[in-house]
């Protein structure tokens, strides 16, 4: 569910559009999208309704559409915080892009996404995440949430 090929740090990304395009490309490469163009459009439409910057240096753009093959959450840490949108003027240094299919979503996937989202509220967790120097470190940190859930299920 948390995939290594969708976790990135220190990316030289400077705009919201570039961040979304970057992740959509990675998700397409991972075979998680049926239609990248449509997915990107849905994500932008959502952003225009209301910015998904949540404060704390984090934005959580998301698209719920059948252009998504399998639910996913991707993490991108950027090299330098940038202004996410002109409404909130929030400076964002971490982008969590979430894709979920319109129908038939596996509840385990939703559970993982909701648990990751909850963790972001935690100051301590954010500090650890922002301090990650490599994609591998960030992946291990995020994957621990996933593993924790699996354990709960057993």
């Amino acid at each position, binding site marked *: 569910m948390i995939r290594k090929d969708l976790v990135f740090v220190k990316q030289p990304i400077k705009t919201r559009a570039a961040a979304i395009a970057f992740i959509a490309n990675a998700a397409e490469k991972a075979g998680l999208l049926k239609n990248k163009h449509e997915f990107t459009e849905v994500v932008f439409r959502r952003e225009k309704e209301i910015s998904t910057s949540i*404060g704390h240096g984090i934005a959580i753009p998301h698209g719920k559409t059948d252009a998504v093959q399998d639910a996913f959450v991707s993490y991108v840490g950027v090299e330098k915080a940038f202004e996410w949108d002109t409404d909130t003027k929030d400076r964002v240094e971490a982008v969590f892009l979430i894709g979920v299919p319109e129908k038939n979503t596996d509840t385990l996937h*939703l559970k993982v*996404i909701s648990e990751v989202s909850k963790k972001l509220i935690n100051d301590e967790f954010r500090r650890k995440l922002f301090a990650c120097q490599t994609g591998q470190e960030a992946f291990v940190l995020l994957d621990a949430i996933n593993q924790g859930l699996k354990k709960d299920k057993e």
Partner: protein
Amino acid sequence: MKIVGVTACITGVAHTYMAQEAIEQECKKRGYDIKVETQGGMGIDNELSEEEIAAADVVIMAVAIGIEGEERFEEKEDAGRILTLNPAEVIRDPAAIIDKAISLLK
């Protein structure tokens, strides 16, 4: 202090659960009794009973959409004990929102 809340957002995948966490975390920090029902992509979780709602001092509705079982809160509404806001607001500044909720008691 007893607080109950409901969170719900449009997509039902992230804000709903983040708002829950933000409210719970802030209330626990203050030693308040807290229970938050979520209405999201996984359906209704942590559902509030009539008794729990009746016993609450204040209710926080962090909702961006209509919710199921709204009638459960009618009495609290009449008593002026409900704070309604967008889930994003409580994620951004939980302390300010809890302060605002408590100010309903005064």
